């Protein structure tokens, strides 16, 4: 089938197998490999992207379901060569180590801040329950989200 999906502001239109998962459309068809696959049970959140501005797990969506919608991936987070505040804060607070969970973690964080611009540290933890990280112990990820929301980083 043919799908039309806007990715990072750019229209894409490709012929795909009906069963194509959105994450593979993004990675293999469009060639944006920043979005990662970390599991097969909708558990890890590494594949998180924004669909019409809201976080979704792109491994648990068909490309067909995104037909006619707008997707944002890590590659589309910054604008005009400037880092998005969440990107800047992840670097400044050392909110990433190996980097594999990072694109999904940042997209989940952007979605959180859209819905709750001034979360507490506990609210950040709760909102990131669907994003696994094996490296950071989450402490600095929470700090990064606090920093991105222009709040005191520690407690």
């Amino acid at each position, binding site marked *: 089938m043919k799908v039309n999906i806007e990715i990072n502001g750019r229209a894409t239109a490709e012929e795909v197998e009906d069963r194509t998962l959105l994450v593979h459309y993004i990675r293999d068809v469009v060639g944006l490999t920043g979005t*990662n696959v970390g599991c097969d049970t909708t558990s890890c959140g590494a594949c998180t992207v924004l669909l019409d501005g809201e976080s979704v797990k792109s491994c648990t969506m068909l490309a067909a379901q995104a037909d006619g919608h707008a997707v944002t991936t890590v590659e589309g987070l*910054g604008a005009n060569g400037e880092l998005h505040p969440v990107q800047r804060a992840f670097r400044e607070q050392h909110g990433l*180590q*190996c980097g594999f969970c990072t694109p999904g973690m940042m997209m989940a964080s952007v979605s959180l801040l859209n819905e709750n611009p001034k979360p507490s540290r506990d609210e950040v933890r709760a909102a990131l329950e669907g994003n696994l990280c094996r490296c950071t112990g989450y*402490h600095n990820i929470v700090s990064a989200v606090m920093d991105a929301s222009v709040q005191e980083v520690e407690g």
Partner: protein
Amino acid sequence: MSLMGTRVVRIEDQKLITSGGVYVDDLREPLLNGAAHAVFVRSPLAHARILGVDASAAREAPGVVAVFTAADLDITKDDDPRMEPWLAGEKVRYVGEPVALVLTDHRYQLADAAELVDVDYDPLPAVIGFDAAINGDTLLFDGTDGNVVQRNGGPFDDATFDGCETVVTHTIVNQRVAPAPLETRGASCAWGEDGRVTAWLSTQNAQIGRGSIAAGLGVDPALVRVVAPDVGGGFGAKIGAPDEAVVLAWAAKRIGRGVRWTETRSENLTAMTHGRAQRQVITIGGRRDGTVEAFRLHVEQDLGAYARAAFLPTLTELMASGVYHFPVVETESIAVCTTTTPIGAYRGAGRPEATAAVERAMDLFAAEIGMDPAEVRRINFIRPEEFPFTTGSGANYDTGEYAAVLDKVLAAARYPELRAEQAKRRESGDVVALGIGVSTYVEITGGDASGESGRVDINPDGTVTAYTGSSPHGQGLATTLVMLLSDRLGIPMDRITLRYGDTDEVPKAVGTFGSRSLQLGGSAVAQAADQVIERARELAADLLEASPDDIELNLADGVWQVRGAAGAGTVSWSSVAERADPPLSEDVWFADGKPTFPFGAHVAVVEVDTATGKVRVRRMVAGDDAGPVVNPLTFRGQRHGGLAQGVAQALLEIMDYDEDGNPVTATLADYSFITAPELPDFELVDSETPTTRNLLGVKGIGEAATIGSTPAVQSAVVDALAHLGVRHVDMPATPQRVWQAINDAKEAV
């Protein structure tokens, strides 16, 4: 001003936060154009004889390039009956063991074709757990006399505990867990027209991987290039090359095409090695004044189906006595094979098991004599003036300030206030009990003592290209090493490029494991830089027409000048490098790397809902001393990650099998990987005690916090329930286990 000890944001991050890392599955290398995709067909049974494999239907499926089974392989391994085959041909010994390789044109054809490979299995009894293995009713390997593959130490002296006023013994479990790096394993292989194979591996050690692939294929290592692209975490489970990579390299040659392989998570949870998997019997004896007189550790190591990690119980024995000066230490270990996923290194690898054992023993001893657990520890510490100290189990510790770090951590935790709150809750009968767990630990880093490579080139334009044998994959080591070089050379960080993880660029190296990288890899590049400086001094002396003895490197400005004659002119690194013939390059093998012994103390504070058994971690206070800190940002990051994995093992994670050998936690929906809401903010206490054993004075920090935190949390859970008569809860302290422990204690009263 020196960069040492300053907070420097990572040079690695720009790419990772904008376009994402380039992991194996992301590669768009020309050699991989048109590569086939690969999947391994894996055993669904724990133990079975293979009567036949029919791949005919799979070979006819859409897009299938080839299907290979053991019968197709013309690469061999040693004749040892316990040797792990490349692909199982006669028997499978764990769920997840590879049986066949399927190659297709497109990724989406893999699972369809793999389903069509028909393997005829004749099931055999599963061997699950140490007891089933050692009774030997079912042998994993035909032609052997049992499932025991290694025995160390023992027999114990019957009189060891004679004369002790108090002796406590307990059997405890250090459960099997999954390393679960966020990136699963992956490899891509392709042969070039020059007859060389390139393998891109998600690995911690490209050079070890090259050795394995060359040996497996039976070719000269010069014909193998291994590249580690960005690696999404390893935690010990990505050391070297997996057997799958050898089979893929072989297959790529056979089909005359590149191959790409990335395992699924469900595959990863049974096919990648697991960690820990020990049962231990601890016995401790001493006087009622708190002095321990003897400690005994008996280790039963489940190695899984193949003996990849027989070194683990050996390391556990080596570190058995922890931070304590015990007059008598006795250890023994027995390692067996079972029909489960093979065990391998996992963050700490042998030392967390040692620390958990001795710390549980100290707690049990303290409870028995009615003394505060922190006080019992203090009484038995090795004192600062006793270093270097050789323990009863043969480890030679370098430096340590065990009481000092414990006192700092207790102060930060406000320990007396916590004990007061605990007493108040107990008095009021609060359903939520407070538990305070104290652990102190020492571990061994760079324990392999096999050295590391480092090379520093000063380019004619004054920039630096450095090469390290270490293999950073998330630790921030690239930033750390560039800081070290900048500091030594007086050249800004942004003019220094660090290369690693490609065997063509760094032919000789060990790589990253065992928290070795800064102390060995860092020492190697530092030593190379120092040698570059000495050569440059000679060259600068020529240029400035002065004696080398009078030439100094002005670190602030990054120029060479005559000492005491600042107005007499300077020469730049660029001028020095241009003058150099041969080029200004020093290649070093830092072999002087003796093991070091980081240490620390952790306090965990937990709340236990005694009605349901659920544990909530309220605080984690950690002091981890690994000598001078180069970059506090990444140093703390390593501790954070270690703390989380420690809490995870204590409370949540277990790789579990049913009695038939089926894994019951083989997806991330079932395996309780720790998440952000289960963790508190971490409170870190600083402590820096240098080692004398390398030129930087540093020890490793990669594993330390995992080692310290696991027993602290376990201890806190038990401490919360101590007033109810509970003395021990095995890990993970699941709600049901905690509830059961409370019930059992009630019944015992």
